[in-house]
Structure formats: structure tokens, C-alpha cells
């Protein structure tokens, strides 16, 4: 038995299977990681790792284990999507932990959530006293959402009755030296225009010199070249050489 060859084969199977399964499970895994999702991720990953290196068990047994966890996760996703009751049962509900500056001790005790954790998460949000908080809600993924009292909220242009210009998503026109024709057409421009802009404004002859070019909604072009000479004012490293 050639162990190296077998591990290579099993590695390819585990990697590809994991890639397919996580792709099907979707973005929820990363963006809304509840405690269960977290455990699910660890278990699936651990099974895939055993599939690769634990040669004492047939790969099929590991693979079926991996598939069952994936299937259970998919079924749970579908059920929680269809039924709000089941969703609440499995994922829990967001809980109010501060209301009008007052800490909800009972709710916190039920969740075994400590005051020190609450204060820490408030500080991360830039709030240093619970008295500034109108509502603080502990979300099902463990993150704290904070609504500050109106007197502590940031001043916005709307508060000052100021008119603002529309700001949308910038469009990528060059990525890694390659002109993105599709994006150019989307904003009603062409390659000629882009090349002339690069030459006239920044004296760039060839788009391949550009690492990234973005066009914002105000028509302003942002260009980052590969060979930019940036003077480093302070060396933050404590040691010579690479860091």
C-alpha cells in the first residue's frame, strides 16, 4: 500500500467534496455564524481532515459521515427558512440586554451572558457607558447591536438639512492590468476613453501598468499603479529584514 498516493487521492476527494458542500451551504456560514453553524463547520472540517489522513477507516465511511452532516445542515436551513417557529427554536431570538440605559439582569442571567462581556462589546461599539444606550440587543450570532440615545448619536447631513450628492458603488475598470470591458460598457464608456484618461491625467501609456482602476459615481477615476514610488516616513518594524 502506497500511503502517499492514497493520502493524495483522499486529499483530492476531501478537498473537492468540502468545496462543493460549503458552496451549496452558502454564504450564511460566514456572515451569520450562529453557535450551531460554528460547531457544524468544525465537525464537517474535522471529518474532511479524517477522510484525508485517517487511513485506518475506509474513505467511504468518512465520506458518508461528511455527506450526512451536510444533508442535515441543508435540511435544517430549508426548514428554518420555511418556518419562523422552527427557526426561533433552533437559532434562538435576539434578546434585549439594555433598555433606556438600564441593564436587563434577568435576560442576561438566562443567557449566561456576563456584564463584563456586555461592557466589552459596548466598548468595541464605541460606547463607554450603558447610560448612553437606548437599546442594546444581543443577536443570535453573539454580536451586540446598539442604538444610542438620540443625544449621543452622530450628527448627519440630514440633521443639518444639508443636500448631499448621490454616492453609489464604484465600478472596477482595470483589475490586475486587464481592462474589464463589461464594466466599461455598463457605465457607457469605452476603451478609448479609458486609455485617453490614463494618458492625459496620469501619463500612463499602457493599462497593464495599472493594478486597479475604479470609477466612482461622481465620475472620479481612482488609479493604483504597480510601480509607485511611495516614501515610507516611519519604519514600524523593530528588526531589520522582512516582517
Amino acid at each position, binding site marked *: *500500500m*502506497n*500511503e502517499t*498516493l*492514497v493520502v493524495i*487521492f*483522499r486529499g483530492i*476527494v476531501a478537498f*473537492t*467534496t468540502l468545496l*462543493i458542500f460549503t*458552496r*451549496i451551504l452558502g454564504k450564511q456560514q460566514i456572515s451569520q455564524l450562529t453557535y450551531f453553524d460554528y460547531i457544524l463547520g468544525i465537525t464537517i472540517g474535522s471529518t474532511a481532515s479524517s477522510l484525508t489522513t485517517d*487511513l*485506518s*477507516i*475506509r*474513505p*467511504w465511511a468518512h*465520506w458518508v459521515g461528511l455527506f450526512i452532516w451536510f444533508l442535515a445542515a441543508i435540511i435544517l436551513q430549508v426548514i428554518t427558512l420555511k418556518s419562523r417557529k422552527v427557526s426561533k427554536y433552533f437559532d434562538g431570538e435576539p434578546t434585549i440586554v439594555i433598555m433606556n440605559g438600564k441593564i436587563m439582569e434577568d435576560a442576561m442571567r438566562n443567557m449566561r451572558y456576563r456584564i463584563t462581556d456586555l461592557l466589552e462589546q459596548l466598548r468595541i461599539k464605541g460606547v463607554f457607558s450603558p447610560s448612553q444606550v437606548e437599546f442594546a440587543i444581543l443577536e443570535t450570532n453573539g454580536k451586540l447591536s446598539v442604538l444610542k440615545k438620540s443625544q449621543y448619536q452622530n450628527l448627519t447631513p440630514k440633521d443639518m438639512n444639508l443636500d448631499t450628492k448621490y454616492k453609489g458603488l464604484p465600478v472596477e475598470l482595470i483589475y490586475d492590468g486587464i481592462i474589464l470591458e463589461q464594466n466599461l460598457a455598463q457605465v457607457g464608456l469605452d476603451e478609448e476613453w479609458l486609455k485617453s484618461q490614463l494618458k492625459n491625467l496620469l501619463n500612463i501609456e499602457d493599462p497593464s501598468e495599472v493594478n486597479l482602476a475604479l470609477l466612482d459615481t461622481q465620475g472620479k477615476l481612482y488609479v493604483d499603479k504597480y510601480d509607485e514610488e511611495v516614501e515610507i516616513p516611519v519604519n514600524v518594524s523593530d528588526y531589520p529584514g522582512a516582517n
Partner: protein
Amino acid sequence: MRNITGYMVPVIILIIFAVLMLSISYLKQPLAKSDDMMQYVKLIKSDIKAKKWNQADENFKRLKEAWKKVRSRIQFAASNGEIEDLSNNLARLEGAIEAKDKLSSLIELSETKNHWKSLGK
């Protein structure tokens, strides 16, 4: 069309993996006369019963060669233990034939047969 391909490619890949991992029962079957392990086991058994030790030794060498071929085919779908068990059986059988020990030889042959049957089940 692109959408269908997007779904079909991963499904086909997963099916191929499943087939490869479940293929031991087929891969252990002889592709030629030279790797028909159970045929050699039968021959060795009759040789031992007839006390034809030289003949048994010859057939054992063929059995060992056949196992080498089969092992390389099934190694990707079988567990380490299954392969080790059968290899150890053959190693003990070799010693028993060399010692012309009828009892041990027949025990090892019987266990070899049993391990062979459980391969892929």
C-alpha cells in the same frame, strides 16, 4: 445551459468519488488469470492436503504476486487495516508452508479467504 452545467459538474464529481470509493468489490475481481487470488488459495489448499509442499510453495509465490496486483488496485478504497490483515495472513502462510505445517497453513488459508470475502463489504 450554463446554469445546468453549473449544477451537473459538482453532482457528476460527487458521483465519481462515490463510485471510486465503493469499487473494491469490482476491483478485487481478477482481470487476468495471474491475479485470480481465490483460484490460488484453492490450489494451495489442495496441494497442502496432498502434502505437495513444493507445489504449494510455487502456488504461494503466484498468490503473493496476485495480491500485489490486487492491492495496488484496491488501496484507494480500502482501509489500511483490511490490506494489512490480508498481507499478514500471507506472511504467516509463507512461514507455515516453509515449515510444512499443515494445520497452520490451513488456518491461514481459511483466514485469508475470510478477509478476502469481507473486502468491499
